[in-house]
Protein backbone atom coordinates (compact mmCIF):
# COMPACT_ATOMS: atom_id res chain seq x y z
CA UNK A 1 0.00 0.00 0.00
CA UNK A 2 1.32 3.43 -0.83
CA UNK A 3 0.20 5.02 2.45
CA UNK A 4 3.24 4.23 4.55
CA UNK A 5 2.44 2.91 7.99
CA UNK A 6 4.88 5.18 9.79
CA UNK A 7 3.43 4.02 13.10
CA UNK A 8 4.28 0.34 12.82
CA UNK A 9 7.60 0.65 14.65
CA UNK A 10 6.00 1.77 17.91
CA UNK A 11 6.49 -1.10 20.36
CA UNK A 12 3.67 -2.82 22.26
CA UNK A 13 1.02 -0.86 20.38
CA UNK A 14 -1.61 -1.52 17.74
CA UNK A 15 -2.79 1.41 15.67
CA UNK A 16 -6.40 0.70 14.76
CA UNK A 17 -6.25 1.42 11.05
CA UNK A 18 -8.46 0.21 8.22
CA UNK A 19 -6.67 -3.14 7.91
CA UNK A 20 -7.18 -3.87 11.62
CA UNK A 21 -10.72 -2.53 11.46
CA UNK A 22 -11.63 -4.95 8.67
CA UNK A 23 -10.02 -7.88 10.45
CA UNK A 24 -11.71 -7.15 13.77
CA UNK A 25 -15.09 -5.95 12.51
CA UNK A 26 -17.39 -8.66 13.86
CA UNK A 27 -15.35 -9.09 17.04
CA UNK A 28 -15.68 -5.39 17.76
CA UNK A 29 -19.37 -5.32 16.88
CA UNK A 30 -19.91 -8.18 19.34
CA UNK A 31 -18.05 -6.27 22.05
CA UNK A 32 -20.01 -3.04 21.58
CA UNK A 33 -23.28 -4.94 21.76
CA UNK A 34 -22.47 -5.48 25.45
CA UNK A 35 -22.98 -1.83 26.20
CA UNK A 36 -26.69 -2.60 26.71
CA UNK A 37 -27.90 -4.45 29.82
CA UNK A 38 -30.25 -6.73 27.89
CA UNK A 39 -27.36 -7.91 25.73
CA UNK A 40 -25.09 -8.38 28.74
CA UNK A 41 -27.80 -10.52 30.33
CA UNK A 42 -28.17 -12.62 27.18
CA UNK A 43 -24.42 -13.06 26.78
CA UNK A 44 -23.89 -13.98 30.41
CA UNK A 45 -26.70 -16.53 30.26
CA UNK A 46 -25.27 -18.28 27.17
CA UNK A 47 -21.92 -17.05 25.87
CA UNK A 48 -21.60 -19.58 23.04
CA UNK A 49 -25.14 -19.07 21.84
CA UNK A 50 -24.81 -15.29 21.94
CA UNK A 51 -21.57 -15.40 19.93
CA UNK A 52 -23.23 -17.42 17.16
CA UNK A 53 -24.84 -14.19 15.94
CA UNK A 54 -21.39 -12.70 15.20
CA UNK A 55 -19.48 -14.29 12.30
CA UNK A 56 -16.02 -13.87 13.80
CA UNK A 57 -13.09 -16.23 13.16
CA UNK A 58 -12.65 -19.30 15.36
CA UNK A 59 -9.51 -17.69 16.82
CA UNK A 60 -11.41 -14.52 17.73
CA UNK A 61 -14.27 -16.50 19.25
CA UNK A 62 -11.85 -18.59 21.27
CA UNK A 63 -10.06 -15.47 22.52
CA UNK A 64 -13.40 -14.01 23.63
CA UNK A 65 -14.41 -17.15 25.50
CA UNK A 66 -10.98 -17.43 27.15
CA UNK A 67 -10.73 -13.68 27.80
CA UNK A 68 -7.31 -13.52 26.17
CA UNK A 69 -7.13 -9.74 26.23
CA UNK A 70 -3.92 -9.30 24.23
CA UNK A 71 -4.92 -11.92 21.70
CA UNK A 72 -8.15 -9.99 21.08
CA UNK A 73 -6.09 -6.96 20.07
CA UNK A 74 -3.74 -9.06 17.95
CA UNK A 75 -6.81 -10.36 16.07
CA UNK A 76 -8.16 -6.91 15.19
CA UNK A 77 -9.92 -5.90 18.38
CA UNK A 78 -9.70 -2.31 19.58
CA UNK A 79 -9.34 -1.47 23.25
CA UNK A 80 -12.48 0.69 23.36
CA UNK A 81 -14.46 -2.31 22.12
CA UNK A 82 -12.74 -5.02 24.17
CA UNK A 83 -13.12 -2.86 27.28
CA UNK A 84 -16.89 -3.41 26.98
CA UNK A 85 -16.28 -7.14 27.43
CA UNK A 86 -13.97 -6.35 30.35
CA UNK A 87 -16.60 -4.07 31.90
CA UNK A 88 -19.09 -6.91 31.67
CA UNK A 89 -16.62 -8.98 33.70
CA UNK A 90 -16.15 -6.18 36.23
CA UNK A 91 -12.66 -5.28 35.01
CA UNK A 92 -11.95 -1.56 34.64
CA UNK A 93 -9.48 0.08 32.25
CA UNK A 94 -6.67 0.20 34.78
CA UNK A 95 -6.91 -3.43 35.82
CA UNK A 96 -7.23 -4.44 32.16
CA UNK A 97 -3.95 -2.61 31.50
CA UNK A 98 -2.43 -4.49 34.42
CA UNK A 99 -3.35 -7.74 32.70
CA UNK A 100 -2.30 -6.70 29.17
CA UNK A 101 1.11 -5.45 30.23
CA UNK A 102 1.73 -8.68 32.14
CA UNK A 103 2.59 -6.60 35.22
CA UNK A 104 -0.43 -7.50 37.29
CA UNK A 105 -2.83 -5.14 38.97
CA UNK A 106 -0.69 -3.93 41.87
CA UNK A 107 2.57 -3.40 40.02
CA UNK A 108 0.75 -1.56 37.23
CA UNK A 109 -1.07 0.68 39.68
CA UNK A 110 2.21 1.44 41.45
CA UNK A 111 3.87 2.32 38.14
CA UNK A 112 1.08 4.77 37.41
CA UNK A 113 1.31 6.32 40.88
CA UNK A 114 5.01 6.82 40.23
CA UNK A 115 4.39 8.81 37.06
CA UNK A 116 3.56 6.07 34.57
CA UNK A 117 5.65 4.30 31.97
CA UNK A 118 8.44 6.56 30.76
CA UNK A 119 8.71 7.25 27.03
CA UNK A 120 12.45 6.60 27.36
CA UNK A 121 13.21 3.28 25.71
CA UNK A 122 9.55 2.86 24.69
CA UNK A 123 9.37 4.84 21.46
CA UNK A 124 10.75 2.36 18.91
CA UNK A 125 10.44 -1.37 18.47
CA UNK A 126 14.25 -1.50 18.11
CA UNK A 127 14.57 -0.29 21.70
CA UNK A 128 12.45 -3.22 22.90
CA UNK A 129 14.34 -5.70 20.70
CA UNK A 130 17.62 -4.56 22.24
CA UNK A 131 16.24 -5.06 25.73
CA UNK A 132 15.17 -8.60 24.92
CA UNK A 133 18.60 -9.57 23.61
CA UNK A 134 20.39 -7.98 26.58
Amino acid at each position, binding site marked *: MAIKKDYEDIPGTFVFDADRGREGYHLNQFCISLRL*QKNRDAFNADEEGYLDAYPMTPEQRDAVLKREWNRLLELGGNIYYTSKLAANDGINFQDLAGIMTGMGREAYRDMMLNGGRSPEGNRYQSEWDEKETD
Partner: protein
Amino acid sequence: MARITAGVGCSHVPAIGVAMDTGITDQPYWQPVFKGFEKSREWIKEKNPDVIFLVYNDHCTVFDASCIPTFALGCAAEFAPADEGWGPRPVPVVKNHQKMASHIAQSLILDEFDITIMNEMEVDHGLTVPLSVMYGDKTPEDEWPALVIPLCVNVVQYPAPTGNRCYNLGKAIRRAVESFDEDLNVVIFGTGGMSHQLQYKRAGLINQEWDTAFLDRLTSDPVGLSQMPHVEYLREAGSEGVEMVMWHVMRGALDDDVTEVHRHYHVPASNTAVGHIILENKAS
Protein backbone atom coordinates in the same frame (compact mmCIF):
# COMPACT_ATOMS: atom_id res chain seq x y z
CA MET B 1 -24.25 38.45 17.80
CA ALA B 2 -22.99 35.31 19.50
CA ARG B 3 -19.29 35.23 20.39
CA ILE B 4 -16.71 32.76 21.65
CA THR B 5 -15.02 34.28 24.66
CA ALA B 6 -12.87 31.49 26.07
CA GLY B 7 -11.62 27.98 25.55
CA VAL B 8 -11.26 25.09 27.95
CA GLY B 9 -8.96 22.12 27.36
CA CYS B 10 -9.78 19.17 29.56
CA SER B 11 -9.11 15.45 29.93
CA HIS B 12 -12.26 13.36 30.02
CA VAL B 13 -11.01 10.23 31.80
CA PRO B 14 -13.98 7.96 32.58
CA ALA B 15 -12.55 7.10 36.02
CA ILE B 16 -12.91 10.77 36.99
CA GLY B 17 -16.62 10.44 36.31
CA VAL B 18 -16.78 7.23 38.30
CA ALA B 19 -14.98 8.90 41.21
CA MET B 20 -17.56 11.71 41.25
CA ASP B 21 -20.51 9.37 40.75
CA THR B 22 -19.41 7.13 43.64
CA GLY B 23 -18.47 10.01 45.96
CA ILE B 24 -14.80 9.19 46.48
CA THR B 25 -13.28 12.45 45.27
CA ASP B 26 -11.75 13.23 48.66
CA GLN B 27 -9.76 10.00 48.81
CA PRO B 28 -5.98 10.59 48.66
CA TYR B 29 -5.78 9.13 45.16
CA TRP B 30 -8.38 11.55 43.78
CA GLN B 31 -7.95 14.62 45.96
CA PRO B 32 -5.13 16.18 43.85
CA VAL B 33 -7.07 15.55 40.64
CA PHE B 34 -10.07 17.53 41.83
CA LYS B 35 -8.07 20.17 43.70
CA GLY B 36 -6.89 21.47 40.34
CA PHE B 37 -10.46 22.08 39.19
CA GLU B 38 -11.49 24.24 42.16
CA LYS B 39 -10.41 27.43 40.42
CA SER B 40 -12.09 26.23 37.22
CA ARG B 41 -15.42 25.86 38.95
CA GLU B 42 -15.21 29.41 40.24
CA TRP B 43 -14.15 30.61 36.82
CA ILE B 44 -17.05 29.02 34.98
CA LYS B 45 -19.56 30.24 37.59
CA GLU B 46 -18.21 33.74 36.99
CA LYS B 47 -18.05 33.32 33.21
CA ASN B 48 -21.51 31.76 33.10
CA PRO B 49 -21.60 30.79 29.41
CA ASP B 50 -24.96 30.50 27.70
CA VAL B 51 -23.70 27.80 25.39
CA ILE B 52 -20.77 25.38 25.51
CA PHE B 53 -19.52 24.11 22.16
CA LEU B 54 -18.04 20.82 23.29
CA VAL B 55 -15.56 18.92 21.12
CA TYR B 56 -15.14 15.33 22.26
CA ASN B 57 -14.92 11.81 20.97
CA ASP B 58 -17.15 8.84 21.41
CA HIS B 59 -15.36 5.74 22.73
CA CYS B 60 -17.14 3.06 20.70
CA THR B 61 -20.25 3.56 22.74
CA VAL B 62 -22.82 5.42 20.67
CA PHE B 63 -21.04 4.93 17.34
CA ASP B 64 -20.20 1.35 16.56
CA ALA B 65 -17.98 0.26 13.68
CA SER B 66 -20.77 0.34 11.09
CA CYS B 67 -20.74 4.13 10.66
CA ILE B 68 -17.71 6.26 11.55
CA PRO B 69 -18.15 10.00 10.93
CA THR B 70 -15.04 12.17 11.06
CA PHE B 71 -17.01 15.12 12.46
CA ALA B 72 -20.53 14.52 13.81
CA LEU B 73 -22.40 17.59 15.00
CA GLY B 74 -25.22 17.05 17.48
CA CYS B 75 -28.38 18.81 16.26
CA ALA B 76 -30.94 16.93 18.39
CA ALA B 77 -32.94 18.73 21.10
CA GLU B 78 -31.15 16.78 23.83
CA PHE B 79 -28.59 14.06 24.44
CA ALA B 80 -29.02 11.41 27.10
CA PRO B 81 -25.97 9.93 28.88
CA ALA B 82 -25.23 6.54 27.31
CA ASP B 83 -24.80 3.17 28.97
CA GLU B 84 -21.10 2.43 28.45
CA GLY B 85 -21.26 -1.06 29.87
CA TRP B 86 -21.90 -0.27 33.52
CA GLY B 87 -25.11 1.77 33.26
CA PRO B 88 -25.54 5.43 32.24
CA ARG B 89 -23.82 8.09 34.38
CA PRO B 90 -26.25 9.61 36.92
CA VAL B 91 -25.96 13.14 35.50
CA PRO B 92 -28.44 15.48 33.80
CA VAL B 93 -29.58 15.04 30.22
CA VAL B 94 -27.60 17.47 28.02
CA LYS B 95 -29.77 20.14 26.40
CA ASN B 96 -28.84 21.61 23.03
CA HIS B 97 -29.31 25.08 21.57
CA GLN B 98 -30.89 23.31 18.64
CA LYS B 99 -31.38 26.32 16.43
CA MET B 100 -27.81 27.47 16.86
CA ALA B 101 -26.52 23.93 16.30
CA SER B 102 -28.25 23.63 12.95
CA HIS B 103 -27.13 27.14 12.01
CA ILE B 104 -23.57 26.03 12.70
CA ALA B 105 -24.07 22.83 10.70
CA GLN B 106 -25.29 24.79 7.67
CA SER B 107 -22.52 27.33 7.99
CA LEU B 108 -19.80 24.66 8.31
CA ILE B 109 -21.00 22.73 5.27
CA LEU B 110 -21.15 25.89 3.14
CA ASP B 111 -17.66 26.62 4.52
CA GLU B 112 -16.60 23.24 3.07
CA PHE B 113 -16.38 21.15 6.21
CA ASP B 114 -18.03 17.82 5.54
CA ILE B 115 -20.06 17.54 8.71
CA THR B 116 -22.34 14.64 9.61
CA ILE B 117 -25.56 15.97 11.14
CA MET B 118 -26.82 13.93 14.12
CA ASN B 119 -30.50 14.41 14.90
CA GLU B 120 -30.50 11.64 17.50
CA MET B 121 -27.52 10.86 19.69
CA GLU B 122 -26.56 9.73 23.16
CA VAL B 123 -23.29 10.92 24.68
CA ASP B 124 -20.60 9.07 26.60
CA HIS B 125 -18.04 10.11 29.24
CA GLY B 126 -16.09 12.03 26.61
CA LEU B 127 -18.78 14.70 26.81
CA THR B 128 -20.19 14.35 30.32
CA VAL B 129 -16.95 14.15 32.34
CA PRO B 130 -15.72 17.62 31.30
CA LEU B 131 -19.12 19.05 32.29
CA SER B 132 -18.89 17.28 35.65
CA VAL B 133 -15.39 18.49 36.48
CA MET B 134 -16.27 22.07 35.52
CA TYR B 135 -19.72 22.27 37.12
CA GLY B 136 -19.36 19.80 40.01
CA ASP B 137 -21.85 17.21 41.17
CA LYS B 138 -25.21 17.21 39.41
CA THR B 139 -27.96 14.62 39.67
CA PRO B 140 -30.24 13.54 36.83
CA GLU B 141 -32.90 15.84 38.36
CA ASP B 142 -30.63 18.90 38.01
CA GLU B 143 -29.89 20.81 34.84
CA TRP B 144 -26.50 21.66 33.40
CA PRO B 145 -26.11 25.46 33.74
CA ALA B 146 -25.35 25.85 30.02
CA LEU B 147 -26.77 24.55 26.78
CA VAL B 148 -24.31 22.27 24.99
CA ILE B 149 -23.61 21.79 21.27
CA PRO B 150 -21.63 18.55 20.91
CA LEU B 151 -19.13 17.90 18.15
CA CYS B 152 -18.00 14.29 18.10
CA VAL B 153 -14.66 13.62 16.38
CA ASN B 154 -13.39 10.24 15.22
CA VAL B 155 -10.07 9.56 16.94
CA VAL B 156 -10.46 5.78 17.30
CA GLN B 157 -10.29 4.52 13.72
CA TYR B 158 -7.03 5.70 12.16
CA PRO B 159 -6.71 8.31 10.75
CA ALA B 160 -8.20 10.99 12.94
CA PRO B 161 -8.58 14.34 11.16
CA THR B 162 -5.25 16.17 10.99
CA GLY B 163 -4.35 18.80 13.59
CA ASN B 164 -4.38 21.35 10.81
CA ARG B 165 -7.91 20.39 9.79
CA CYS B 166 -9.05 20.58 13.41
CA TYR B 167 -7.47 24.00 13.87
CA ASN B 168 -9.16 25.29 10.72
CA LEU B 169 -12.45 23.76 11.81
CA GLY B 170 -12.14 25.85 14.97
CA LYS B 171 -11.85 28.96 12.81
CA ALA B 172 -14.93 27.93 10.82
CA ILE B 173 -16.88 27.30 14.03
CA ARG B 174 -15.99 30.80 15.15
CA ARG B 175 -17.29 32.25 11.87
CA ALA B 176 -20.48 30.23 12.27
CA VAL B 177 -21.00 31.37 15.88
CA GLU B 178 -20.35 35.00 14.99
CA SER B 179 -22.93 34.88 12.21
CA PHE B 180 -25.65 33.72 14.61
CA ASP B 181 -27.88 36.63 15.49
CA GLU B 182 -28.69 35.84 19.12
CA ASP B 183 -26.58 37.56 21.78
CA LEU B 184 -24.85 34.58 23.41
CA ASN B 185 -21.69 34.00 25.41
CA VAL B 186 -20.12 30.82 24.06
CA VAL B 187 -17.22 28.88 25.59
CA ILE B 188 -15.58 26.14 23.54
CA PHE B 189 -14.21 22.94 25.10
CA GLY B 190 -11.56 20.70 23.57
CA THR B 191 -11.40 17.45 25.47
CA GLY B 192 -9.41 14.21 25.72
CA GLY B 193 -5.82 13.34 26.50
CA MET B 194 -3.32 14.09 27.77
CA SER B 195 -0.69 11.37 27.20
CA HIS B 196 -2.15 7.93 27.72
CA GLN B 197 -2.10 4.47 26.26
CA LEU B 198 -4.82 2.08 27.35
CA GLN B 199 -3.86 -0.94 25.28
CA TYR B 200 -1.43 -3.80 24.95
CA LYS B 201 2.09 -4.09 26.27
CA ARG B 202 2.98 -0.40 26.29
CA ALA B 203 -0.12 0.58 28.31
CA GLY B 204 0.53 3.19 30.97
CA LEU B 205 2.81 5.42 28.89
CA ILE B 206 2.94 8.94 30.31
CA ASN B 207 5.03 11.72 28.79
CA GLN B 208 4.93 14.69 31.12
CA GLU B 209 7.54 16.63 29.17
CA TRP B 210 5.56 16.29 25.95
CA ASP B 211 2.29 17.18 27.68
CA THR B 212 3.82 20.28 29.24
CA ALA B 213 5.20 21.45 25.91
CA PHE B 214 1.77 20.89 24.34
CA LEU B 215 0.09 23.03 27.01
CA ASP B 216 2.76 25.75 26.64
CA ARG B 217 2.46 25.89 22.86
CA LEU B 218 -1.32 26.33 22.98
CA THR B 219 -0.55 29.93 23.93
CA SER B 220 2.87 30.50 22.39
CA ASP B 221 2.68 28.59 19.08
CA PRO B 222 -0.78 27.27 18.30
CA VAL B 223 -0.32 27.15 14.53
CA GLY B 224 2.98 25.29 14.76
CA LEU B 225 1.45 22.91 17.29
CA SER B 226 -1.42 22.11 14.94
CA GLN B 227 1.07 20.85 12.32
CA MET B 228 2.19 17.90 14.45
CA PRO B 229 1.81 14.62 12.52
CA HIS B 230 -0.30 11.78 13.92
CA VAL B 231 2.69 9.52 14.42
CA GLU B 232 4.17 11.92 16.98
CA TYR B 233 1.04 11.73 19.15
CA LEU B 234 0.99 7.95 18.83
CA ARG B 235 4.67 7.51 19.63
CA GLU B 236 5.18 10.25 22.23
CA ALA B 237 1.80 10.51 23.92
CA GLY B 238 0.52 6.94 23.56
CA SER B 239 -1.95 5.43 21.14
CA GLU B 240 -4.90 7.13 22.85
CA GLY B 241 -2.96 10.42 23.14
CA VAL B 242 -4.07 11.21 19.58
CA GLU B 243 -7.26 12.51 21.22
CA MET B 244 -5.27 15.73 21.67
CA VAL B 245 -6.05 16.74 18.08
CA MET B 246 -9.43 17.84 19.44
CA TRP B 247 -7.78 20.59 21.46
CA HIS B 248 -6.80 22.29 18.18
CA VAL B 249 -10.47 22.80 17.34
CA MET B 250 -10.85 24.71 20.59
CA ARG B 251 -7.66 26.68 20.01
CA GLY B 252 -8.55 27.56 16.41
CA ALA B 253 -11.83 29.09 17.56
CA LEU B 254 -10.04 31.60 19.81
CA ASP B 255 -8.09 34.75 19.00
CA ASP B 256 -4.48 34.37 17.87
CA ASP B 257 -3.50 36.02 21.15
CA VAL B 258 -4.91 34.46 24.28
CA THR B 259 -4.21 34.60 27.98
CA GLU B 260 -3.73 31.40 29.94
CA VAL B 261 -5.78 31.96 33.07
CA HIS B 262 -5.46 28.51 34.60
CA ARG B 263 -3.57 25.26 34.18
CA HIS B 264 -3.70 21.94 35.99
CA TYR B 265 -1.65 18.82 35.39
CA HIS B 266 -1.58 15.64 37.42
CA VAL B 267 -0.54 12.00 37.04
CA PRO B 268 -2.32 9.62 37.34
CA ALA B 269 -6.01 9.20 36.89
CA SER B 270 -6.37 5.54 36.06
CA ASN B 271 -4.03 5.09 33.02
CA THR B 272 -3.90 8.74 32.18
CA ALA B 273 -2.22 12.08 32.66
CA VAL B 274 -4.89 14.64 33.54
CA GLY B 275 -4.43 17.95 31.77
CA HIS B 276 -6.54 21.07 31.88
CA ILE B 277 -6.16 24.63 30.67
CA ILE B 278 -8.33 27.72 30.45
CA LEU B 279 -7.58 30.27 27.73
CA GLU B 280 -9.31 33.62 27.35
CA ASN B 281 -9.42 35.91 24.37
CA LYS B 282 -7.58 39.09 25.38
CA ALA B 283 -10.40 41.31 24.23
CA SER B 284 -13.08 39.53 26.29
